[in-house]
């Protein structure tokens, strides 16, 4: 076969599935095309996805991002503010608020009474991290975690804020962080996409903020870099299963015939796209095996389910998705992102947030422990957090047992672990009202720059030219937060 076509074919395959050596299903294809193809591919697997990437030796090979959609309340979970108890119900001082803008939901509210958290906090581990009683399992692994208490963003509403977190811009149209990584680094596993997304529904607030395809979309990058959503109902990947009545043997025969006919066409027309198409059908066939294998957790021992909690046996829960995330990480998927909905506690916060924590606490902590036990934590960066924080003042009526909190972009807490981050530390501080940052602010662009840094990427140099401009995930900003890295 024509060496030029071979190269084209090989490059195109790598775009989607990375660049490791050829897998099992390649046999049929290789026989049809040329054995040299395989050899060429194996050789190519030594080099980077984009030329020159990674820019330097990475600490993390992959990222698991546990996105908490709706914005968890930092002062009820991690950012302990003991002095608030004394001023419960009193008006938030103007000197703290400083006239900053509020959302349309509370800007016409007449009072801004302080709602101290009703949950108890304690210090945990050698690091002495403060964690509320809502998160006992996370508290138990506190020594593994790096809490960033000084996150901040510009957006004050969910859609722009979460879009900002995912793409570095508040408005739709930019590539998501995972598609930037697929574009830059490809995937380590040829049978699975480089960027996988899973969503789950919180029990605390079941009709909460929606999600959108754009959050894992590829923006102006080619669509092959978009995240592939693994689903808990129906096919784990859209259209993965053969139609009813069409068995594997028939499918194999059909694909062999299809490859023969497409190869005849390739010989006649010489268009390398035909070669790519032949390869993509083989990859599709392999996904039909590899994805169900991945999502079938029946081979996991009981103690694993026990570690992740009872919900981990129910497909589609956050806990089940955490377990799948570990399986994906084991298989070398580059960017694994979970979205858990339900953190938007405008009213009835104590009850709702308890439900959210029940959904997520045990499984998040289990994932950290599980990765560590398997030796995967060192090169897997795990991030846990939402799109902004919540206000110290109450939205709606403040009662002895009940309160709500509005959106607060000026400070919030996330945690990360593994993949080159320091463990058992807290970074950044907020004032006594958990309203403004007093030390070491970390902007969303800074977090992006830091995540890319862990993966060996200089965020200023991963660019894509679109409409005349070299775009990057961090726009024109972003500083790597070196202090939290090993």
């Amino acid at each position, binding site marked *: 076969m024509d060496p030029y076509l071979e190269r084209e074919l090989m490059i195109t395959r790598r775009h989607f*599935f990375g660049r490791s050596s050829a897998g099992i299903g390649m046999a049929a294809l290789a026989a049809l095309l040329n054995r040299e193809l395989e050899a060429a591919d194996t050789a190519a697997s030594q080099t980077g996805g984009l030329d020159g990437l990674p820019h330097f030796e990475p600490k993390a090979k992959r990222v698991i991002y546990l996105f908490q959609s709706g914005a968890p309340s930092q002062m009820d979970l991690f950012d302990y503010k003991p002095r608030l108890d004394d001023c419960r119900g009193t008006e938030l001082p103007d000197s703290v608020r400083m006239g900053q803008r509020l959302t349309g939901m509370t800007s016409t509210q007449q009072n801004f009474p302080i709602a101290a958290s009703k949950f108890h906090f304690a210090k945990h581990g050698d690091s002495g991290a403060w964690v509320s009683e809502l998160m006992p399992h996370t508290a138990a692994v506190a020594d593994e975690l790096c809490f960033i208490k000084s996150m901040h963003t510009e957006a004050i509403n969910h859609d722009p804020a979460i879009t900002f977190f995912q793409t570095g811009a508040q408005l739709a149209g930019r590539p998501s962080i995972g598609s930037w990584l697929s574009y830059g680094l490809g995937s380590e596993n040829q049978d699975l996409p480089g960027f996988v997304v899973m969503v789950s529904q919180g029990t605390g607030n079941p009709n909460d903020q929606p999600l959108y*395809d754009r959050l894992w979309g590829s923006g102006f990058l080619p669509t092959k870099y978009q995240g592939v959503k693994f689903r808990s109902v129906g096919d784990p990947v859209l259209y993965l299963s053969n*139609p009813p009545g069409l068995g594997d043997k028939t499918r194999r025969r059909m694909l062999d015939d299809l490859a023969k006919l497409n190869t005849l066409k390739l010989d006649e027309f010489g*268009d390398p796209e035909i070669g790519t198409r*032949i390869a993509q059908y083989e990859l599709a066939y392999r996904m039909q095996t590899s994805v169900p294998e991945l999502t079938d957790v029946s081979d996991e021992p009981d103690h694993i389910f026990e570690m992740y909690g009872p919900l981990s046996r129910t497909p589609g829960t956050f806990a089940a998705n955490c377990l799948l995330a570990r399986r994906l990480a084991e298989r070398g998927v580059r960017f694994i992102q979970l979205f858990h909905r339900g953190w938007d506690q405008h009213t009835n916060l104590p009850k709702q947030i308890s439900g959210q924590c029940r959904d997520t606490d045990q499984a998040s902590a289990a994932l950290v422990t599980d990765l560590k036990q398997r030796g995967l934590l060192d090169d897997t960066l795990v991030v846990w957090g939402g799109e902004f924080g919540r206000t110290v003042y109450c939205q709606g009526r403040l009662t002895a047992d009940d309160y709500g909190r509005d959106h607060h972009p000026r400070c919030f807490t996330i945690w990360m672990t593994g993949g080159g981050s320091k463990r058992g530390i807290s970074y950044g501080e907020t004032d006594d009202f958990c309203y403004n940052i007093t030390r070491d602010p970390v902007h969303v662009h800074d977090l992006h720059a830091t995540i890319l840094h862990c993966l060996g990427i200089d965020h200023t140099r991963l660019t894509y030219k679109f409409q005349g401009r070299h775009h990057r995930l961090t726009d024109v900003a972003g500083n790597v937060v070196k202090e939290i890295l090993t």
Partner: protein
Amino acid sequence: MGRVRAPSFRSWVERALVCVAVVGSAPLSSRGADDRLPQRVEFNRDIRPILSETCFGCHGPDKAKRKADLRLDSEASAFADLGGYRAIVPGDLDNSELYQRITAEDPEERMPPKESGRALSPEQIDAIRRWIEQGAKWQKHWALLAPERPPLPSVQNTTWPLNAIDGFVLAQLEHEGLAPAPEADKTTLIRRVTLDLTGLPPTPAEVDAFLADESPSAYQKVVDRLLASPRYGERMAARWLDAARYADTNGYQSDGERTMWRWRDWVIDAFNHNMPFDQFTVEQIAGDMLPSATLDQKIATGFNRNHRGNAEGGIIPEEYAVEYVVDRVDTTSTVWLGLTVGCARCHDHKFDPFTQKEYYQLFAYFHNVPERGKAIKYGNSPPLIASPTPEQQEQLKQLEATLASAEDDVKVCECELAAAQSEWEKSLDAVHANTWTPAGGLVAHFALDGNPHNTCDTSKGNFKDGKPSFALGQLGMAGEFDGSRYIDCGDAAVFGFYDKFSACAWIEAKGEHGGTILSRMTDTARADGYSLTLEGGKVHVNLVKRWLDDAIRVESEQSLAPNQWHHVLVTYDGSRVADGVKLYVDGRPEPLKVLLDDLNQSFKTSEPFRIGAGGGPEERFRGLIDDVRVYNEALSAGDAELIANLDSISDIAALPAEKRSKPQVHKLRAYYLENQAPEPIARAWRNLVALRKQKAAVVESSPTTMVMQELDTPRDTFVLIRGQYDKPGDRVSPGLPASLPPLPAGAPNNRLGFARWLVDPSNPLTARVAVNRYWQMYFGVGLVKTVDDFGSQGEWPRHQALLDWLATEFVRTGWDVKAMQKTIVMSATYRQSSRVTRALLQRDPENRLLARGPRFRLPAETVRDQALAVSGLLVEKLGGPSVKPYQPAGLWKELADTDYQQDHGESLYRRGMYTFWKRTVAPPAMITFDSSGREACCVRETRTNTPLQALTLMNDVTFVEAARVLAQRIMTEAGAGQSPEDRITRAFRLATARPPRTSERKVLLAGFGEYLRYYRAHKSEALELTSAGESKRDESLDVGELAAYTTVASLILNLDETITKE
């Protein structure tokens, strides 16, 4: 087709021959893989791209970022005296600081600086050297100079060119030492052009007819037929919808539905009627401002309302009001000007000559729309208009005529009616109706005459928080309320925000307290639901999802006197705006003050209907409430007057006619007409009422569509510092960038003037940008690859003379869109075979030199449409509301808690362009095949090749069903033949237009044999496979055989060739 004015071949050839003799060719060069620098350096082609990419960031238009006061994008500055030295001195390298710095050894001196991340290659430095040596001739950026109609170049091979396009293409090929490919075979050609012009494949009969037609005009006849097909409009519209970010939802958060399909249909219609592009432009940008604008011209302006609209609870409306205008400016400048003007929102443009101030001058043209930053969450956001479909317009026209004659009928009866009524009045005794009220639409009625029950049904009300209590009321007894007790009426009067309803009661408030009269609302303060209350003497109507930011609240202007009976009646027309709420006090319309007008979600609750309560214990009513009525329609003012009038019919009749009040006269007449009038009169009356209702129903069922409108007093526009909505700088007025031609003299400096300026022949960009996009449709890549950027960062046009010829031709023909398509597809360039040799592939992988025909995968919607067409499932119907075909279950649900209600029947088989487009969860198969997401303007076509596409084609029920129906077709269609060979050949031809070759047939037949053996032995699997989709399996066919053919058909639909235009 009368408008097509493509020059005939003959006339072109004649002119070409003349040109060959007199015109020398300009030096041309490819800039392909084997880039060879031309001897003669040309600034625009060779130097500007280097400077733009490497230098303009710091030495470009953006004055804020400019370093060393050096500007290299303007001629004056590049050659200026910078204090004893100059950046560029023509012909003098030693004194050209620019050259000295880019070649400096000292890293401190060397440009570009290392930290910029930019670098110059030795070839680029060499080009700059030679340019300076050759005299450093400067050129304004090519795209900002008006195109001049280029002379046709001379070519050696004078037999190949068929029209002007070919002359330009061939001249370059000859310069490159290449020859064009032979013409594609006829079968390939008719499939290519049919897919290109209609988005659907040719039928075997069409292929046969073309093969049989040996006349020289055979191909042209096909092209003319295709251009005349209504499918052409659909095909052309599909790409325009991407550019216009058209969708069926609002695009933010829960992403509610909107209806803009009237605009989409306008686009299809415009293409099909070959509306000239200048008119197409003006109507879409400013149709509303044309003198006596028609409904269609207003609908056209939906182009700039297709952007997303945010209705999220906490947004700051001012922020989004700015984003909408920004979207309009960016989209309009991308689509018409091919400029990335949006870069100048926050700072002066870094590469092109647009200042930030100029950006906001453009912004000002689009800033006068009477809209709000907070959009409507479910539905269209104002400004919007009712836009009855042509059928509905016809229906209305007829109804109006019938109505006029029905009104005449009633008028004719008028004398007779008056006489008959007065006769009847005399005959009336007290036995006749006393307290009559019209009963239409009444769904709940609490007379409160000693019990709290609903007289409309058997449900019972119950007093709560106190003992039942009644007192003498307006009509018999009334319920008595003490600030604590209320009546729980159970599940009555359920309404949400799309529902029309009316509710009324007689009330006598004791003292100043008032309280809730009636409600269906949570019984806590600031609760959700609806209520009619009396607060401080004023009547309030509350329709509330969330207090403060998701509610309608209105208040009566006047206070009701306490301790007196008043009738209060509220109507709501389901329009979700405060304007849709009307209040009547004592039968008279009551002016309202709008307190909140931000309702975005339904106020429907599971609370009971309560009389005297709702909204918390402190809001309980004090006083008497009588005769509570609820209607499931928005009553008219006339109805309100009737209901509030308590006079009995016999009492009114007993009054002398001249003593009767107006309401009394109305009531008596209404009663008489409804109950007592002699049949001819009653019939005429009933007829009139029925017709009025019919008309109202048509008006109501008319879709609305969002449009552009102009405020009477223009809004002020300010430069927004760093582009932020809350950081206004200097005030600006509408205006055009200085680097583009000015408005023609006398043109109004408003949106209409701007629209006309876009298509003024002096505009250097619009025609080029438009024809370049057309080119992209046919060849996969534009002549300027960056179809969305003609600025200095954009690609230098590969065939500028050809681009300019096409642009000037477009204008010369009166912006004739069909003629332009025809010119392109009639060219020999387009008709070339798309086979490629290894050498050519290496030389020109992207086919930018056009030494072969285009070959690339079909667009997403065509992949679908073709499968449906080939099987015969396709339902062809132009326009109408978007449809919801198959989609994997739960896709919407898992992201946004809304269910996808899949359609059935013919809606499953419409063309892909009619598929309901939810922006936040776009149709998955479309996205997989590289559709634009429709969140923002998209004009660049991209194509990827992924395993997800393979999975979709193999397993999506759309394609499995199509395969089965295709199998049925070849098994039953007359002429398909009986043998497997014949049938498979037929299927292959349907999909690819050609018969399979022997080698291919062998593979297919062998496969078929195996499938047949398998499915004959596994009948249940055969049944399963052939049950895909909602169309019925042909039960007369052997199911094993059908399954085998289905498998073969599926294979054929999966062939690379099938989903490829070649």
